[in-house]
């Protein structure tokens, strides 16, 4: 039976960029306000789930040709490397550092290496969630 999902698909086209933007906002705001890598990753996978709901697995695989198991591996690698990076500078494992920089457009900002660790968490959460949902959805 063919169904007409025009309203759902149009709403998804408007809503999913907003959800992605909100997830990026929550990811970068995690140091000073509620949020962080975990919630941001869940929200980004929520946007992909919304795409999966209004289209199908094949269309979404065409839009986002990502192997989510690889995303988990890259995220774990980033998190582990930021931990071991402290050993290079003769500091204990998982020591983080920050410094203030004068960036062109943003101005005076503090860049912290904990953001890199959070990026690993973000990628792992997206990868695990999407792997679970896609393997359950693909089975006949």
């Amino acid at each position, binding site marked *: 039976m063919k169904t007409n999902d025009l309203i759902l698909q149009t709403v998804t086209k408007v809503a999913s960029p907003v959800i992605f933007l*909100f997830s990026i906002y929550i990811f970068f705001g995690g140091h000073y306000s509620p949020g962080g890598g975990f919630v941001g990753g869940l929200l980004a996978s929520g946007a992909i*789930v919304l795409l*999966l*709901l209004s289209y199908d*697995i094949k269309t979404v695989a065409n839009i986002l040709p990502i192997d989510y198991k690889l995303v988990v591996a890259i995220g774990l690698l980033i998190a582990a490397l930021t931990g071991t990076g402290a050993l290079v500078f003769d500091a204990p494992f998982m020591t983080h550092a920050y410094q203030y920089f004068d960036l062109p457009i943003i101005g005076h900002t503090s860049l912290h290496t904990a953001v890199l660790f959070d990026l690993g968490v973000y990628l792992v959460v997206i990868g695990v969630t999407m792997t679970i949902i896609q393997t359950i*959805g693909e089975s006949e």
Partner: protein
Amino acid sequence: MFEIVLQISLLCVSISMLGLLYRLIKGPTVPDRVVALDAMGINLIAIMALTSMLLDTTAYLEGILLLGILSFIGTVAFSKFIEKGEVIENDRDL
């Protein structure tokens, strides 16, 4: 004065959530229950907004937007399950 107004409105929203809970338990069909759950999500957003005003903090504002998004995705998933019997299709052109 403003605090009393906030508490009265919290009470009203809580009573309306009790009504929705009645529909969620009693509701004769599945769509009744799904609509009740959706409206409960909206009421939860209202409760969170009123609480953040009562506690005089902006820490809940991200949570409000998050709950709105999650409630929308959940309702869409439930409606698709009721309509087609499966939530995520492999290939919709088949």
